[in-house]
């Protein structure tokens, strides 16, 4: 069974926000909300500063707290690629999942249900990349099966230094940043 994830090359990402615009367009994300976003992290002391630009989204964690806290089973792990999804019809809008996410990746859609990145599962089923990956002008985003040792993403993670965001939160995130 596939286990989808992403590797994002922080040496290539320029923070152009094409991924953000593509996601909003592809998924009809309402105005004022984002399923993905850009984070810039500046470290060091002038003049020896380092800047990391990251395209962030739901980490589709292996141990997703949003799934375990959901009282109706609306938040679930889909068998296709073990993607974390929300069944809009089963969601009661209790917001426990929003509070349980250490990444702040979820929000309440104006129609009342919890919403977040789906890895564009509707595109992936048809053999396409998620919209954010497809439009990236620097080709810094790589999507694929983490459990397939022959996939591009597995090769990248095996050959390049990488880190996840907040691994200390213990949720085993599946978005990795190549450094």
């Amino acid at each position, binding site marked *: 069974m596939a286990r989808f994830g992403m590797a994002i090359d922080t040496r290539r990402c320029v923070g152009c926000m094409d991924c953000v615009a593509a996601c909003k367009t592809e998924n009809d994300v309402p105005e004022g909300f984002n399923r993905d976003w850009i984070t810039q992290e500046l470290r060091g002391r002038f003049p020896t*500063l380092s800047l990391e630009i990251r395209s962030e989204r739901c980490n589709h964690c292996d141990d997703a707290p949003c799934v375990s*806290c959901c*009282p*109706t089973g609306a938040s679930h792990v889909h068998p296709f690629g073990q993607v974390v999804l929300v069944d809009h019809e089963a969601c009661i809008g209790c917001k426990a999942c929003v509070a349980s996410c250490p990444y702040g990746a979820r929000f309440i859609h104006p129609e009342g249900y919890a919403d977040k990145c789906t890895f564009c599962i509707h595109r992936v089923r048809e053999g396409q990349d998620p919209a954010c990956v497809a439009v990236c002008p620097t080709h810094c985003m790589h999507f694929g099966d983490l459990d397939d040792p022959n996939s591009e993403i597995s090769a990248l993670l095996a050959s390049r230094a990488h880190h996840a965001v907040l691994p200390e939160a213990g949720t085993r995130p599946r978005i990795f940043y190549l450094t």
Partner: protein
Amino acid sequence: MFETITTRANHLVDPHLHVWAWQIPLYLFLGGWVAGLLILFGLKLRRGARPARDSVTYPLPWIGLGLLSLGMLALFLDLEHKLHALRLYVSFEPSSPMSWGAWILLIVYPVLVLGALLDPPGALTRRFPWLTRAARSIRWTPDRLRLLGLVAIACGILLGVYTGVLLSSLGARPFWSSGLLAPLFLVSGLSAGAAFAHLIARRSDEQRQMVLLDTRLLAVELALLLLLVLGLVGGGAVQKEAAALVLRGPLTAIFWVLVVGVGVVLPLVVQLLAIRGRVHHQPVAPLLVLGGGLALRFVIVWAGQASHWLHG
């Protein structure tokens, strides 16, 4: 230098989480209060109290039904997808404390109704004569009453503990990541129940019994509050940041003055003086306990939402 800039500005999530406003703290307070009333009611039944002869025991289930319904209304008002609320009862999710809570509430209601029907008011029995027969069958034997008492105590403990576990299970919020929240909310709920029973007690021996109980509960609650803060201070960086919210942050004054000072220490002192006969029993102490219990839920819910894993 460490600076993080994000383009995200999602409603209710940024700049810090504020998904739960007044409804959830009120619901947690009322739930805890009902838990306290249920446990007291159960203890009274186990000790042989009969509703008709006891000014404290008789109204507890009735008040509990009213408070729980109010709490459920607050919970319902908080839901963003209200028309789907009944989905809570379509499945049981064992890993979700909220699912446990929904089913616990479903068990608590009939227990409160059974308790209320032990001695239904005359106005009701005149209109619905079958209520008299129902009441008789419930109090048929002392064993049956003791069993109802045991069930009420069990339901009260489950309900009180659940209100704390609901928050402490959300590990993304360092302020809530403490196993002490469950006993703290349970003891605070019991204290609210005892304070309320003190308020409605007609006989002085009943008042004294409730004051003695509430004084002990307040002492335990004070210890749990201090341990909660100490636990956070002694934790890692994110726990220390969470503790700073009530030590030198925006919630410091409300936590130490309203929750600890006015809600616990002041009524504790007043009731200790009343026990030693220095002052008369006053309604002010139980009222402060109830206000403090409400303030506690507000501060804990706010502080938890303001605490997070990300630095900065």
